[in-house]
């Protein structure tokens, strides 16, 4: 327990009785002294107050009686009036001063020593100086100051009063001290007697260790509570002692039970050991390999069969890591992973390493042994399947060899008699086409050809054989392995006898399918290309064109291939193009033709066609070629021109519209001013002279006219953004921001808003409009504030193209569907009573930003606040001025 108040050292060992007495005496003495001091102070100020009041009254009375004497400068009469001061015992003297501040008449009490001031103060005054109090009062006659009266009085009576007071206080002090001492000695026994009783009891309990004694309670105060607490504590100690005795008995009983249980368990263990030994013997001599692997992968037990199977001794196997005995690291990793996940492995194949280095195949069945859900070791049963495995492997290998051989055969060698018949079995033909010898004998082989090719091949074949010279033909032949026809090239060469007659023919069939297909794909790709494609050689001769090119120029394919490329050019470009073409082939590089120029081709009918041409050189076997890709851009050119025309039209109509709005609103003002003026005059002259309905109607007219005026003014401001802006100049944005905040000063203070901003950059723009922009945005933030105190921050971020400004507030926010609408002219989201305004501020803002070539948008979370963003590009000004220049032209 921490002491809150520390007693002064001399009292620390005193009894409560003396401490209480001391406290009571100290408190009464201090209260008495403080009360006395206050009374004395109060008496003194009352005395001063009374004295001042007395002489003020005297001054007013004497002054009033002296007006005539002052007015007619009768000093004698004035002195007589002043002499009346002798009736007041305090007054030492008095004097009258004329309006010029000169002493006019005076009075001094007999025997008093008084010096009158030489001049008068500018105003009425009163003061205490030493033992004197004096006063200056103006003497007036009907508001005209005639002079001053001065009265001085003594304050010495105060000392007599004070002496008397001090005597009374001293007597009272002695009385109070004695009385408080007597009372405190008597009354403190209420507290000290019960405490002394409690102390007595606690000493007895400590001495006798008798917890059945109870303290006597006197009162229901804190000491009474202390006695109750003390008695409770004794109750609890007594109870605790009984509980401890009970617990000791219980403990004794438990120890005896435990001894009985231990004897029982020893007997059971002996039985268990015996049955375990029997089981171990059975497992050790089983005819299947068994081992256990611990969670760390170490073999912790293996039976005899397992060791014999792999040829290890027990020490060489047990205690080693299981992976040492596996050939395939991933397999054993997988096994261990499965087992640690508590999965069961069945018939899992693995390659095991024997002691002599040979490899055996094992079929593993295994599961994990768990104790209380925790992995202890695996239990693996290994069966030797090496022999079975070897047989399987041999079979698979032979099959694979056969398959590879067949697949690899793409060439066929054949022999035929002088008339072209297959007379002997053709093994390689059989493998390629899958035709059995009886099927391909004689002209049976024709059936392996593509139906479309059979007739031409037969024809060429017969002719070739008849001519008796080597020949070559192409045909599509059935390829049994891929299951479709392949393009093939067949060559035939005659072998002649000594007499020169053909003895037999020998030949090959080569698979050229891949090449042929690639060529076809390429041709189709070129044909299907959306652009016109054309290949020309180094002489400028057209080697290939596609369908698109035919359509584009109106020529047929046969009319172009083999012709010089210049056929497709306008007449005037043909001669220079030959030189350009030669230059291209001297340094062939992919490029766009005629960069920066409009290119035209010449159709067969002589009409020009606008084109864009890309050139790509490539090297083929027979030299360098150029692939030209040609796009017809007639349509695009037309669209571009159309777009340009629309754009000009739009700009002109925009400009006219702005002018119209300005002129319209400007001209509207004049008649409106007449209407508004007349309505206001009507209101001033005939207010409450007609009936109430008339008053109401006139009022509607006046407010309606005022609103219309405001709308027109807003419209004028809006249209002036575009038409009456100042030329752009470089300016520091902090200027406009500061000015905008100064303009909003009243509103900011009224809202108690906190407005912060980043450092402002220098931009090129219209300073006045920037001020208006900031003023509208900050003003909006103030206007649409919620219940919270407005916090507005103006931030700036430099982007590559300019500055991004953001005005962030914590106001009522805007629903997303209104993000665009708020920027419209006279668009309001709230009615006029909720938030005043015409709904043009943001429209003006956007127009100002657009004049600066920037963009403006808003982001907001309703109820949380809004952020108005706008950009001011770095190069905006030049562009704007350029545009103005163009308009003047």
């Amino acid at each position, binding site marked *: 327990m921490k002491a809150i108040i520390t007693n002064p050292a001399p009292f620390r060992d005193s009894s409560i009785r003396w401490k209480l007495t001391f406290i009571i005496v100290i408190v009464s003495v201090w209260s008495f002294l403080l009360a006395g001091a206050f009374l004395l102070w109060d008496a003194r100020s009352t005395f001063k107050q009374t004295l001042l009041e007395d002489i003020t009254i005297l001054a007013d009375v004497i002054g009033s*009686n002296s*007006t*005539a*004497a*002052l*007015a*007619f*400068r*009768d000093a004698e*009469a004035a002195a007589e009036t002043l002499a009346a001061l002798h009736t007041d015992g305090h007054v030492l003297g008095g004097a009258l001063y*004329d*309006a*010029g501040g000169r002493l006019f008449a005076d009075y001094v009490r007999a025997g008093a020593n008084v010096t009158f001031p030489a001049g008068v103060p500018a105003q009425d005054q009163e003061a205490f100086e030493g033992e004197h109090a004096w006063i200056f009062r103006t003497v007036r*006659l*009907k508001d*005209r100051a*005639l002079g001053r009266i001065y009265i001085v009085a003594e304050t010495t009576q105060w000392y007599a009063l004070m002496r008397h007071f001090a005597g009374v206080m001293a007597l009272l002090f002695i009385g109070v001290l004695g009385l408080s001492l007597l009372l405190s000695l008597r009354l403190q026994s209420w507290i000290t007697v019960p405490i002394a009783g409690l102390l007595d009891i606690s000493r007895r309990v400590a001495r006798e260790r008798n917890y059945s004694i109870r303290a006597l309670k006197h009162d229901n105060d804190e000491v009474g509570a202390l006695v109750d607490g003390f008695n409770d504590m004794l109750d609890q100690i007594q109870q605790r002692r009984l509980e401890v005795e009970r617990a000791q008995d219980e403990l004794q009983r438990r120890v005896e039970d435990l001894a009985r249980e231990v004897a029982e368990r020893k007997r059971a263990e002996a039985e268990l050991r015996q049955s375990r030994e029997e089981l171990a013997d059975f497992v050790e001599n089983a005819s299947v390999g068994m081992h256990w692997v611990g969670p760390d992968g170490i073999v912790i037990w293996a039976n005899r069969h397992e060791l014999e199977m792999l040829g290890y001794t027990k020490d060489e196997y047990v205690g080693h890591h299981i992976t040492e005995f596996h050939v395939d690291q991933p397999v054993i990793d997988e096994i261990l992973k499965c087992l640690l996940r508590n999965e069961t492995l069945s018939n899992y194949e693995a390659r095991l390493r024997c002691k002599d280095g040979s490899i055996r195949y094992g079929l593993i069945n295994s599961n994990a042994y768990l104790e209380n859900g925790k992995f202890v070791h695996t239990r693996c049963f290994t069966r030797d399947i090496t022999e079975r495995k070897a047989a399987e492997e041999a079979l698979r290998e032979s099959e694979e060899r056969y398959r590879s051989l067949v697949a690899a055969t793409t060439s066929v060698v054949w022999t035929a008699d002088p008339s072209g018949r297959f007379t002997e079995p053709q093994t390689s033909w059989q493998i390629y086409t899958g035709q059995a010898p009886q099927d391909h004998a004689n002209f049976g082989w024709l059936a392996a050809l593509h139906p479309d090719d059979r007739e031409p091949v037969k024809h060429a074949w017969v002719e070739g054989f008849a001519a008796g010279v080597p020949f070559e033909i192409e045909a599509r032949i059935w390829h049994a392995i891929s299951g479709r026809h392949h393009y093939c090239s067949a060559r035939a060469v005659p072998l002649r006898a000594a007499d020169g007659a053909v003895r037999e023919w020998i030949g090959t069939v080569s698979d050229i399918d891949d090449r042929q297909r690639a060529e076809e794909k390429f041709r189709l790709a070129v044909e299907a290309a959306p652009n016109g494609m054309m290949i020309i050689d180094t002489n400028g001769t057209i080697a290939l064109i596609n369908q698109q090119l035919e359509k584009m120029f109106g020529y047929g394919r046969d009319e172009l291939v083999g012709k010089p490329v210049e056929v497709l050019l306008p007449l005037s470009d043909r001669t220079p193009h030959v030189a350009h073409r030669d230059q291209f082939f001297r340094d062939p590089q992919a490029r766009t033709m005629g960069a920066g120029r409009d290119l035209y081709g010449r159709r067969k009918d002589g009409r020009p066609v606008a084109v864009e041409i890309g050139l790509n050189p490539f090297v083929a076997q027979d030299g360098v070629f150029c692939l030209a890709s040609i796009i017809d851009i007639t349509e695009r050119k037309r669209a571009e021109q159309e777009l340009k025309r629309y754009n000009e039209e739009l700009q002109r109509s925009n400009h006219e519209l702005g002018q119209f709005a300005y002129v319209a609103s400007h001209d509207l003002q004049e008649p409106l001013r007449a209407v508004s003026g007349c309505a206001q005059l009507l209101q001033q002259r005939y207010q409450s002279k007609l009936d109430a309905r008339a008053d109401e109607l006139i009022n509607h007219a006046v407010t309606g006219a005022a609103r219309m005026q405001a709308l027109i003014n807003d419209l004028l401001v809006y249209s002036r953004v575009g038409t009456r802006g100042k030329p752009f100049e470089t300016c520091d944005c902090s200027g406009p921001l500061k000015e905008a905040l100064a303009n909003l000063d009243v509103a900011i203070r009224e809202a108690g808003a906190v407005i912060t901003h980043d450092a402002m950059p220098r931009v090129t723009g219209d300073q006045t409009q920037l001020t208006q922009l900031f003023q509208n945005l900050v003003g909006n933030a103030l206007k649409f504030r919620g219940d919270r105190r407005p916090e507005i921050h103006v931030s700036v971020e430099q982007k590559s193209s300019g500055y991004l400004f953001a005005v962030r507030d914590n106001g009522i926010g805007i629903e997303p569907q209104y993000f665009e609408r708020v920027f419209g002219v006279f668009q309001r989201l709230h009615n006029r009573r909720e938030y005043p305004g015409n709904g043009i501020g943001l429209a003006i803002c956007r127009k100002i930003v657009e004049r600066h070539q920037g963009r403006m948008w808003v982001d907001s979370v309703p109820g949380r606040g809004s952020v108005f963003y706008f950009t001011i590009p770095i190069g905006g000004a030049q562009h704007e001025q350029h545009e103005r220049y163009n308009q003047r032209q």
Partner: protein
Amino acid sequence: MKFMRTLIVVYLYASTGVGAAAVSDASLEYQVKASYIYNFIQFIEWPADVFNGEFKICVLGADRFAAVLDALQGESVAGRTIRVARFDQPHAAAAAHCHVVFIGRSADSAEALQVLPSKGVLTVGEVPGFTAQGGVINLVERHGNIRFQVSVPAAQRAGLTISSRLLQLALDNR
């Protein structure tokens, strides 16, 4: 006399604040008399029914005040503006509804007092025996100072209430 001149100039300047600019035009005696007239007005009450918005001070006979009295013109007395008028003939003055009539030495005071209406007019004279003739206040010279006599019965006849403070200062009253 030099002492008195100094005193009067200072007095005029300090107590009324008027006429300082006109000092050179009038004799010192009339400067003092003009200020006395002004001070009399402060201590005397007229019956309420004699006013029509202005307070009229009239001078009968040769005007020796010159511009000093004109300085009072336009001053305000109890909400009424002072106007100053000058007359040669008592009859003309009598018809002019004056509130104060200064009867100069050159005028026949006895005749004037006969002709002037007794009600609401403060007559101020400067010849011995003026009060005996029925005038209200007479200005006299004593020991080089200007002093005044007041006829209480004449004042009562005229319906004027004179402050006791003024009466205290009157000659023959101490």
